[in-house]
């Protein structure tokens, strides 16, 4: 009975996982298929069609698609870099130093993520107009801090708190100054957290739609906003849309695959008495 029920359990388990995988992956597969169909065959639901690269040609060579990609990369990448440079020291301060209203400040930072973007975008639009940073890389990178900074600070703060403070003391006694300790001893230990938080922040920034829609214009147009261009007023080029969406998903997927090993936590465990 035991082995039989175990086997049955395994079959059910795997069956459910397969169903979930199909459920999760089917839209992506469908998108890929759409991207290699011609407009004429777009609405057929059988899998019989003659594949074509016309859509790819139209999107990559005949539109400003690459420019939009570049805009997205600059804005999302810039946002993450600023978040890392400013957020890691902030996280360190929140983890190590005791000051008045520390928890309030930490919560305040987190609460930036609570408000729906659409709620703040209108006043931001007017402020940006006045400051003259509407439709600029700087402006978008700045506003993206609302998305990436809280996430990064909270994840990295947790990592700093896990590092025993004696490790810093030991390094001081060994003759290192604060900067050396920070870069030589602390950064390697928070790296898994830093990298995964930065990756998530990048994906969120990359996927952001509301802010660039309202605060970007003709000069800076990230891919999320630009994709809508393939929806014409008279016709929708679903094939081209599919190509644009597929390619825009690539950077995040590539990054995630590259740093997969850093997503595994556990480096800082074991050196400190439990």
């Amino acid at each position, binding site marked *: 009975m035991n082995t039989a029920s175990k086997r049955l359990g395994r079959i059910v388990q795997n069956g459910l996982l397969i169903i979930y995988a199909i459920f999760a992956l089917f839209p992506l597969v469908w998108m890929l298929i759409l991207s290699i169909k011609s407009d004429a065959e777009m609405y057929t639901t059988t899998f019989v069609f003659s594949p074509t690269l016309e859509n790819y040609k139209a999107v990559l060579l005949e539109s400003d698609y690459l420019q939009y990609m570049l805009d997205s990369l600059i804005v999302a990448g810039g946002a993450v870099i600023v978040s890392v440079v400013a957020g890691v020291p902030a996280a360190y301060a929140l983890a190590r130093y005791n000051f008045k209203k520390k928890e309030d400040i930490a919560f305040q930072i987190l609460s930036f993520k609570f408000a729906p973007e659409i709620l703040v975008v209108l006043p931001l639009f007017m402020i940006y107009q006045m400051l003259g940073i509407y439709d600029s890389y700087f402006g978008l990178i700045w506003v993206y801090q609302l998305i990436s900074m809280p996430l990064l600070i909270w994840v990295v703060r947790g990592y700093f708190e896990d590092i025993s403070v004696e490790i810093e003391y030991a390094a001081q006694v*060994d003759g290192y100054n604060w900067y050396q300790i920070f870069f030589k001893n602390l950064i390697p230990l928070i790296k898994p957290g830093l990298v995964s938080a930065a990756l998530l922040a990048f994906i969120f920034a990359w996927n952001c739609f509301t802010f660039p829609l309202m605060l970007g214009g003709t000069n800076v147009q990230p891919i999320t906003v630009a994709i809508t261009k393939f929806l014409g007023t008279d016709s929708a080029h679903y094939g081209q849309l599919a190509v644009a969406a597929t390619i825009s998903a690539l950077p995040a997927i590539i990054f995630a695959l590259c740093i997969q090993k850093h997503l595994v936590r556990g480096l800082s465990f*074991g050196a400190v008495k439990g």
Partner: protein
Amino acid sequence: MARIQLENVTKRFGKVTALDGISLDIKDKEFFVLFGPAGAGKTTILNCIAGIQLPEEGVVKFDGEVVNLVDAAHRDTAMVFENYALYPQMTVYDNMASPLRSKLYKKDEEYIKNKVQEVAEMMKMENLLERLPSQLSNGQKQRVAMGRALVRSPRVYLMDEPLAHLDAKLRNSMRTELKAIQANFGTTSIYVTHDFMEAMSLGDRIAIVNKGKIVQIGTSDEIYYMPCNEFVAQLMGDPEINIVGGKLKKEGSGYFFTLNDVAERTYQLPEDQDLFRALDEAGLEDIELGIRPQNVKYSFEPKDDYTKCTVYSYESIGNKSVIVAEIGNLQLRMIAPNGLTVKIDQDIYVKLELDHAIFFNLETKEYVSRYNEAAVKALAAEQEG
């Protein structure tokens, strides 16, 4: 190599006073032990000396020079942390090499290699050099932490319970080793422990710390034989000292002592002019005697001058055993040879060797006097040199 002085050092964490006016004068080349119960402030004293924590009041001096404003890196100390504080991302070798690679104490790689090898051999861990801290047992981590301190020749070694997590055998051999190392290098060492055996065997002098204050400073024998109060007496020694309360009565030139817990049991105190003079001066009636377990004699047959008790517990601990006898509310610990057949609740006859007793004031628990005080003082003076 340095003389370390603390003058009136006070350290507070918020509302908690961790150190309350600590003054210490640790001589050059001395092996100085800080001993006390958990939470007494021993580690905080080390941190203040290392420069990791800044005292709110008081000064820390190295060789007479105030170092309060010198940061930890520039104080030239080496510290062993109680929780090891190894760098998790570095191998054992890199951990141990770390102090020699910092800008301040820079050495060439060849020197580092030899030095690390030498220390690793001393610590019996040559085979661990390539491992990461997470692959080590607690005892091994502790040795790495020690090794990291020992590769340098600092002005002072600060060791925070460096042997606490080693197994018993290794602890004994490391204790001997440490003493030898310190004697060879002649480096001032400050050693924190809560194990009285370590404190007694290692320390040139011992400071007893309790609740952020220094209770007593002296050589191990001085503290063992002349504890300044009952707290210290109970801390030093295993099994713990017997504290016996009673009444003191002067008759003629002699003194009589009546036990509080045992009705009508009266002893005549053996003659000691110095002691009697001290008792005369103190003029106390209520008193407590401290009697070490080895000064309680026992017999299983009735004997003259022996008091009848019952056995409360019997523990054999290898080379000796400990009997706890009960009489009224009083429990007496005594040391016996092992291999006895002792039953719980059987009769036992005990005698207190009062000529080794230490006298404490019942109310203040402070030291009053003891037998042969002059001899103990002379011994202490000789040991301190």
